[in-house]
């Protein structure tokens, strides 16, 4: 601990530190804080859908307006703040410099600045709930005219102040601030990968998770630009009386859908790629085998990155786009599943005939692969075909589909990473009993929530309806029971995350001190330094001789060969 004499106070550590590990922790805590509310929102509107007349403590009886606000903010926070905040910003900050064997990011001050932008975006988002509209309810996709809301290009809110100090404006500003934050972070990640690798580390010896986070950042940068411009135009529509998206003036609401989904679809891969990267690390460590097809995975992901910029209109099959275009987008959408099938097959080939260690992170990782592939990926193929999508669009089937893609990636592989690296960055062990309890409750009740939604969707239950009581065919037979099962499961799913929060906080302060700096016997560089890594990460900077996954080589004594150990 060469820098152990640098004592950091609370304020310094949580507000002004330039150390990438501190900034990663700041991202993690901020996103967990905001995701807490998004989880509570989900519980509340699920209760409302199953038991419409129940009065919920603190929220009362949920009317259509409140329902819209809850659903919108649940989606916005989970997709834009939690997913990217944890998998890109927090994981990127924790992992990239240590895994590359260097002291910090390429631009530590830029890194700090990007966190400040992230924090201010969260604060602006929270402020949106205190505006006269009491929260934004225009759907997480922010489609105009819903996102223009009560202003509706009309005369009701003439004053500029009335338009500016509205939930609509504040939510858009929060989204814009968050994009700025992640763009700056992405520049930092990319330059760090290319310029700050340890001596001897070739580009094809970089751990997969680092590649994935950087590729995701680059993809984010290439896809988000048009939406930044679009957000700018939407802000002008609300605040300056322009009519970019106003059909009555020749503007086009579809323009927003194009700009949004040109970002929105690559966005799901921006979230997916770091998740796959974490899976690659956890699986190789616990399967004690080298990653099958490292180069192949990189090539497949780069192909998918290009394809992902050409599939966006599959979100708009029923929005009135040209049927000929729909065919093209259907075909491209189905093609894009091939590279990801290739990546998953590489993981399965890594697991094939391996000497499996079923540790807690490995359980999360295996569950992530199973749920993502079988229920998330395959239903994605269904929805990608325009013929099926026209039937299932805007039903609970779609809701179940994207929860089965996002939750395995964000929650399951995020947790795999958390349980894998917690001991490295805290120097303490997590409580295993609580960890297992958290895993099984999450696994069982996530399916208890998702599978009924598939069935409800196929039965024709539309999404984004503030209650189904008044629709006769949805309040008959077994459908109300399915909604109750989904609701009770969702409540337990959200509540079981508090086991994790408790485990995190308790173990970080009171957990058993870790006895080894490399408890999983892993090869990558972060395991070859102290736990937690000191300021500057390494006492002597490592020199790399091998690729990242040298397990079970016949010519070594132990079954793993660290990257920095000469043969």
């Amino acid at each position, binding site marked *: 601990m060469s820098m152990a004499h640098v004592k950091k106070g609370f304020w310094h550590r949580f507000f002004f530190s330039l150390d990438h590990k501190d900034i990663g922790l700041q991202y993690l805590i901020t996103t967990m804080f905001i995701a807490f509310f998004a989880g509570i929102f989900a519980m509340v509107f699920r209760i409302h859908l199953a038991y419409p007349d129940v009065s919920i403590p603190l929220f009362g009886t949920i009317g259509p307006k409140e329902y819209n606000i809850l659903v919108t903010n649940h989606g916005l926070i989970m997709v834009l703040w939690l997913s990217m905040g944890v998998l890109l910003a927090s994981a990127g900050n924790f992992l990239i410099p240590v895994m590359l064997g260097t002291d910090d990011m390429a631009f530590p001050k830029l890194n700090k600045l990007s966190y400040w932008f992230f924090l201010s975006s969260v604060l602006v988002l929270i402020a949106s709930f205190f505006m006269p509209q009491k929260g934004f309810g225009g759907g997480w996709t922010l489609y105009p005219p819903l996102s223009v809301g009560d202003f509706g290009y009309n005369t009701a809110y003439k004053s500029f102040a009335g338009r500016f100090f509205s939930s609509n404006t504040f939510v858009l500003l929060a989204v814009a601030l968050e994009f700025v934050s992640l763009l700056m972070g992405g520049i930092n990640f990319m330059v760090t990968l290319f310029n700050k690798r340890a*001596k001897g580390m070739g580009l094809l010896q970089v751990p997969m998770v680092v590649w994935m986070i950087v590729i995701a950042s680059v993809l984010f940068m290439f896809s988000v630009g048009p939406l930044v411009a679009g957000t700018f*135009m939407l802000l002008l529509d609300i605040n300056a009386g*322009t009519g970019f998206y106003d059909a009555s003036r020749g503007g086009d609401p579809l323009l927003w859908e194009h700009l949004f989904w040109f970002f929105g679809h690559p966005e799901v891969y921006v979230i997916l790629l770091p998740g796959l990267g974490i899976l690659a690390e956890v699986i190789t460590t616990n399967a004690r085998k080298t990653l099958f097809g490292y180069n192949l995975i990189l090539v497949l992901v780069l192909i998918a990155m290009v394809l992902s910029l050409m599939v966006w209109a599959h979100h708009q099959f029923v929005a009135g786009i040209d049927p000929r275009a729909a065919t093209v987008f259907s075909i491209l959408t189905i093609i894009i599943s091939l590279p990801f099938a290739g990546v998953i097959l590489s993981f399965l080939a890594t697991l094939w005939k391996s000497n499996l260690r079923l540790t807690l992170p490995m359980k999360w990782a295996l569950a992530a692969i199973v749920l993502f592939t079988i229920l998330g990926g395959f239903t994605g193929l269904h929805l990608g075909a325009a013929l099926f999508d026209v039937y299932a669009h805007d039903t609970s089937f779609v809701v179940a589909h994207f929860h089965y893609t996002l939750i395995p990636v964000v929650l399951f592989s995020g947790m795999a990473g958390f349980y894998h690296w917690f001991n490295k960055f805290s120097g303490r062990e997590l409580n295993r009993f609580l960890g297992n309890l958290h895993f099984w409750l999450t696994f069982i009740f996530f399916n208890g929530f998702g599978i009924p939604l598939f069935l409800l969707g196929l039965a024709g239950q539309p999404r984004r309806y503030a209650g189904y009581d008044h629709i006769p065919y949805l309040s008959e037979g077994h459908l109300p029971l399915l909604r109750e099962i989904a609701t009770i499961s969702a409540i337990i799913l959200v509540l079981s995350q508090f086991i994790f929060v408790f485990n995190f906080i308790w173990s970080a302060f009171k957990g058993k001190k870790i006895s080894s700096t490399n408890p999983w016997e892993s090869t990558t560089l972060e395991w070859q330094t102290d736990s937690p890594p000191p300021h500057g990460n390494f006492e*002597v900077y490592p*020199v790399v001789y091998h690729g990242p996954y040298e397990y079970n080589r016949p010519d070594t004594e132990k079954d793993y060969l660290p990257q920095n150990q000469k043969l």
Partner: protein
Amino acid sequence: MNTLSISKIAWNRIPQARLAMWTLIAGEFVIFGGLIVTYLLNRMKYPGWGEMAMHTNVIAGTINTFVLLTSSFFVVKAHEAALKKNIGKIKFWIWLTILCALIFLGIKAYEYTHEIHAGFTLSSPALLAQGKHVETLYWSLYYTMTGLHGLHVVAGALALFFVMRNISKTGTHFHRIEVAGLYWHMVDIIWIFLFPLIYLIH
């Protein structure tokens, strides 16, 4: 393990700041790309936009194009001076660049004034009153695109100013002229796209 100092572990295959700036520029082009595609699609859809484009001041736009192109030349001269670490010449050429930026903004302000007086504003209520709905969109997008570009001109000039001040104070960080200059060229190139699209096509 051996004992390497931290300065030796960074391989610096590509100069760090230049790589970051290229990445930023790529991101900026996508932002303007979104606006330009929006503009082109609407332009092809609505013949009325051509009529609105007639109201732009082509002469002022042409002068502004020359001003920006000249400023790019000045930045290159400043870069040349930075390679020779000649602080006096750096200051001379950067001040000329900033002067060009100010001239550009001045001419743009002159254009805006005339257009606003003719009733063409961000939301153009005068055109709306005449029933020319689609035509208002042209001006909305005109102000959005040129306004966003104008903000980039301001940002680029400020960056050049602070880089120059820092160099003349400390006598180090000469490479920053190149990095800020790259940004300035980007501002120039974006204008090269905007000028024919907005002013020249009728």
